[in-house]
């Protein structure tokens, strides 16, 4: 009897261990029945999706579908809105983002974010990039320089700015500023990159440069890309989710979602019938 219970417990533990172990390898971020609301508005309704490590996960959907809100939930930028309510869970490496004792600063460092409009702070290029590292206490000039150089190279911006790192970042063009923002996010040494329509204001050439950078960066980061341009999702996305009015309608391999969507609303959206 005692032995049987022990065996049962052991087996149970073993299974649990096995499950979490394999999950850690295949899932980086996992939303479980995740809902988000503020005031009386429900912005996201029971989202369930898994994001795998080292993939480009794109989120498409019309305006006000909740895709940006979802992205901003992941690094808890929405905390600043009054009266927010989170329900369900979002797990990052198996740990709840909204659990007690989560260090939000550290969380935001692990999930670097790039906003829709490029925001170059009125500082030098160097100081723009060094902002995040300095805020977490990195002071050494050599360490900072190395971080700056590395992240600028990864954003394909190094060659264009290496001789004027101490000039104002505001003098850069729009496309360069957005790559600067990408570099600034990478200077945090994150695990995940959250990109919120990073090409919305850019010309096709700048867009292509950013897309090339993203495909290259996949090996180092998990990338979540929110985009209004469905073609962009089709070009760079490994898997894609379609959001509509705060709900996730469909999620799957990008190629399948674009060629054989399960839901008629998805096919309506990607063929341009609405949105």
């Amino acid at each position, binding site marked *: 009897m005692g032995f049987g219970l022990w065996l049962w417990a052991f087996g149970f533990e073993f299974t649990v261990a096995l499950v979490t172990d394999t999950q850690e390898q295949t899932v980086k971020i996992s939303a479980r029945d995740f809902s988000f609301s503020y005031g009386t508005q429900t912005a996201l309704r029971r989202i369930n999706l898994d994001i795998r490590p080292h993939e480009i996960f794109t989120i498409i959907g019309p305006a006000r579908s909740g895709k940006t809100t979802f992205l901003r939930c992941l690094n808890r930028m929405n905390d*600043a809105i009054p009266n927010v309510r989170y329900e369900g869970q979002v797990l990052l490496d198996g740990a709840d983002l909204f659990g007690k004792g989560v260090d939000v600063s550290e969380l*935001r460092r692990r999930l670097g974010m790039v*906003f829709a409009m490029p*925001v170059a*702070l009125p*500082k*030098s290029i160097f100081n723009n990039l060094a902002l995040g590292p300095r*805020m977490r206490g990195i002071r050494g000039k050599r360490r900072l320089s190395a971080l700056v150089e590395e992240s600028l190279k990864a954003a394909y911006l190094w060659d264009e700015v290496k001789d004027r790192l101490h000039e*104002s970042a505001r003098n850069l063009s729009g496309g360069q500023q957005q790559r600067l923002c990408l570099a600034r996010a990478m200077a945090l040494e994150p695990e995940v990159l959250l990109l919120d329509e990073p090409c919305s204001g850019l010309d096709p050439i700048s867009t292509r440069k950013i897309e090339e950078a993203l495909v290259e960066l996949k090996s180092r980061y998990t990338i979540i890309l929110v985009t209004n341009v469905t073609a962009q999702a089709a070009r760079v996305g490994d898997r894609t989710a379609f959001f509509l009015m705060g709900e996730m309608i469909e999620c799957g391999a990008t190629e399948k979602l674009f060629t054989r969507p399960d839901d008629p609303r998805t096919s309506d959206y990607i063929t341009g019938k609405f949105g």
Partner: protein
Amino acid sequence: MTRVHPKTKEFIAKMALRGIAAVVILTLVSIVGYVIVKGVAVIDLKFLFGQPRSMGREGGVFPFIVSSIYITVISLAVSIPLGLGSAIYLTEYRAEGWATKVIRFGIDCLAGIPSIVLGLFGFSFFVKFLHLSWSLLSGGLTVSLMILPFIIRSSEEAIRAVPQSYREVAFAAGGTKWQSVTRVVLPCALPGVMTGIILAIGKCVGETASVIFTAGTSLRTPQSVFDSGRTLAIHFYLLVRETGASDMAYGSAATLLIAILSVNFTAYYLMRRFLRRVS
């Protein structure tokens, strides 16, 4: 009725606006010019660094320059940290609500109090109640009450003008609120904050009513903040009222004006250099 041609209207408007601008500039130039022209004759090194004789009818104004500097430094030292702190609290740390409204209303009331009433308050509170007696400290503290609402308001405007997206960058980079304030918001708001402070310096130096009540009118060079002292502006007032030595009065007025103007110019120059470096 015939319609006036838009081009004619344009011409009239342009001329009228030019006229208004000319009137404003002329007024300014003639006031400053008049005082400086009348005063500059008595200004020399002996005037600037000498001691006054026979109640200021002769001699220099050195003690009054020292007192003015004391009052300005004390009131800025008190009101900049308090003012900037309040502005940061109101804009960054406190959501708009009844509390901010009450605080802002209080600030506006403080700004609306005539300086002579503040002088009376300074006299009964700092001079009598806190036993600071007539001293530069009492005077500086009283003047700081006067410029505090001004510094809060101008800093608040400057901080509010910093785009929200800058703060988001700081937060998204893992910054705390305080880090976003010190590393992103304040550096961007600095020109606006500085402008407020520069204008406040002018108010400090030129203040008379409240300082007479609190810092006194001693003719001696103050040795510490606990000494009584007479600022340039008060000296000017007393010269005209009590001695009738108008050339000496214009001399101190010109000194005052030149001092304020040079403070303004240096501050703007430094600020422009600073701005060119950062943006």
